[in-house]
């Protein structure tokens, strides 16, 4: 064991350039503090310790990462950044522009990340050509979850178009079942919105609207029909939805009070935790339309001083993208591995579907970043879109007015 440890340490030490012997140290800032998430991060902690590293845990709970970001800001301003920070999407680039991220290309090239990660996901991990972050998992956002018994009892198949969905929902409503379980929080409204937008605008339209912020697409008739569909969905939601947490909406599907939920695959964790089996008790399918919206958690590596810290950073990066961690972590978290060469034997049928769709959409160019989960746009722009979406969903605003507001809000946020 001791030899093995020494070997691992020196291998890492060699990678991080002219370091002779330094004990790897890493301080990791993250907000995975709830049950399943905490278990998942403990896996990484254990592996890091097994490889001779000293892990300093810095969990900051609260506000969906807002509190952690405030802590990070304070640490960076004080010139004492943590080794690795749970960051994702364009936020990585934003921090890079502040000039505080490290270059971990040495590890990435030695480990061949470019060959095992889908190109669009790898793009998020690179800052002007050099690698600066390590991906942990891939959450699919555009899922539709359903209660199998409720669908069967009402003779409904999983919808494959929005018209089918609307017809099924009306039928369910007639039977006294809430068609769509939804929680009225801005990010959940945005999650449903982008799932609808992907179906109606198509992959190219989605990219134009929510990645390139193309004004013509944002104000197009197709975008108006997206808002029309949102208005229709509003009628399928129970009146008591504002403020409800997403997991309570999932519970409504679980106990048959509601039939469908549109939510990312963290909802699967709730079903599994309640002892429900995929395919039998609950069904998973991608929302109507082509494409795959991903939400990739990752760790951004910050510039740190000291050989021990740099060695720890390199070791951490290597372990995060390593086969064993990618598998164990994602089994715990309900997502799928970011690298495509992990054996999925132990994963469930929904994860298999997710992995197949990811591979297919990556080739077809429809593997797209989720705007609602901060993968596509920076905070100010995605926030501006969400403001319009949630204000439309919660009022009687017309679709014409909504697209106008969308264009103004985006122009105002730049």
């Amino acid at each position, binding site marked *: 064991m001791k030899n093995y440890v020494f070997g691992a340490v020196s291998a890492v030490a060699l990678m991080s350039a002219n370091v002779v012997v330094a004990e790897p140290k890493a301080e990791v800032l993250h907000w995975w503090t709830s049950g399943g998430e905490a278990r998942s991060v403990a896996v990484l902690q254990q592996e890091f310790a097994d490889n001779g590293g000293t892990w300093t845990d810095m969990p900051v709970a609260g*506000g*969906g990462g*807002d*509190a952690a*970001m*405030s802590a990070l*800001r304070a640490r*960076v*301003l004080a010139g004492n950044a943590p080794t690795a920070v749970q960051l994702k999407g364009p*936020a990585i680039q*934003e*921090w890079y522009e*502040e000039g505080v991220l490290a270059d971990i290309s040495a590890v990435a090239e030695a480990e061949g990340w470019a060959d095992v990660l889908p190109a669009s996901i790898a793009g998020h991990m690179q800052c002007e050509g050099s690698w600066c972050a390590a991906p942990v998992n891939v959450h699919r956002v555009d899922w539709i979850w359903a209660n199998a018994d409720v669908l069967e009892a009402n003779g409904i198949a999983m919808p494959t178009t929005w018209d089918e969905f609307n017809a099924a929902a009306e039928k369910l409503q007639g039977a006294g079942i809430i068609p769509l379980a939804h929680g*009225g*929080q*801005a990010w959940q*409204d945005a999650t449903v919105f982008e799932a609808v937008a992907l179906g109606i605008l198509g992959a190219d339209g989605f990219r134009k609207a929510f990645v390139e912020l193309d004004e013509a697409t944002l104000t197009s008739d197709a975008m108006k029909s997206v808002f029309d569909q949102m208005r229709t969905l509003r009628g399928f939601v129970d*009146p*008591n*939805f*504002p*403020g409800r947490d997403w997991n309570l909406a999932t519970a409504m599907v679980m106990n048959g009070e509601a039939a469908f939920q549109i939510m990312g695959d963290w909802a699967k964790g709730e079903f599994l935790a309640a002892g429900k089996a995929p395919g039998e008790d609950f069904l998973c399918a991608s929302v109507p339309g082509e494409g795959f919206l991903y939400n990739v958690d990752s760790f951004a590596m910050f510039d740190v001083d000291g050989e021990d810290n740099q060695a720890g950073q390199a070791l951490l990066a290597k372990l995060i993208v390593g086969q064993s961690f990618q598998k164990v972590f994602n089994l715990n978290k309900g997502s799928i591995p970011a690298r495509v060469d992990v054996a999925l034997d132990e994963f469930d049928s929904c994860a298999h579907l997710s992995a197949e769709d990811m591979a297919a959409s990556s080739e077809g160019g429809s593997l797209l970043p989720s705007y609602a989960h901060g993968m596509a746009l*920076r*905070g*100010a722009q995605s*926030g501006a879109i969400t*403001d319009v979406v*949630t*204000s439309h*969903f*919660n*009022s009687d605003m017309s679709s014409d007015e909504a697209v106008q*507001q969308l264009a*103004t*809000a985006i122009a*105002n*946020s730049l």
Partner: protein
Amino acid sequence: MTKWLEDHLPKVVLAPSFIAVLIFVYGFIGWTAWVSLTRSKLLPKYDIHGFIQYERLFAAPRWDVAMNNLFIFGALFIVISMILGLLLAILLDQNIRTEGAIRTIYLYPMALSMIVTGTAWKWILNPGLGIEATVKGWGFESFTFDWLVNPNMAIYTIVIAAIWQSSGFVMALFLAGLRSVDTEIIRAAQVDGIPTWRVYTAIIIPSMAPIFLSAFIVLSHLAIKSFDLVIALTGGGPGFASDLPATYMYAMAFSRGDIGQAASSAMIMMAVVFTIVVPYLYSELRAKND
């Protein structure tokens, strides 16, 4: 040496807090003003870009909603709290036997944190759990009380919870005011056979003007800095229908990485506070000089 100490001790004792206030209050007000003129995003930057953040702020529909909500909330909260507090104080002032116990009961909500108040009222007002569900359970099927989930009414639920929390405190203020009115005048009025309500409207309430002013100042700054109550009760929702300037500022600074925008909204909030406090300070200072 002792002489020097005797002369300078007050200054020496006050100096640390004076310096702290100078830096942490006025220094940071200046810093925020500076940042509000820049294009700061994730981290503060110091290159001045004019009033771009203020232009963005006034063009944002969400800020409009937040400011409107502040005026609705502030006006209703202050006026109703004062009326209720005054009524309670007058009723309590009738030499009733259990005054101590009742006063404690009314004052008690003040001991709760706003988060607790907000959470409790969230459950009480939730149509599926609270008042609406209970009344429906009694058999009144058509009863609805869905303010919490109605975008047009959500701000009023915040008014209700805030009044519940603060009117007891206002009552205590007024009660102290009522007790400080010269009893000789009241007795004289009673001897003259003036009805009680006239005694209150013509003598007691006018003589309590300073108490009204302090109650107003306390309540108005509570209203402007309201944040935790909104977060606990509605989370600013449905949509952003019950946003207040403080929650807007928080969203910009901490969720969206838009520090410049947050700084400009903070400056506007401070301007609102100043329009209330400055006339007060002015009148206070002038009264002393006279």
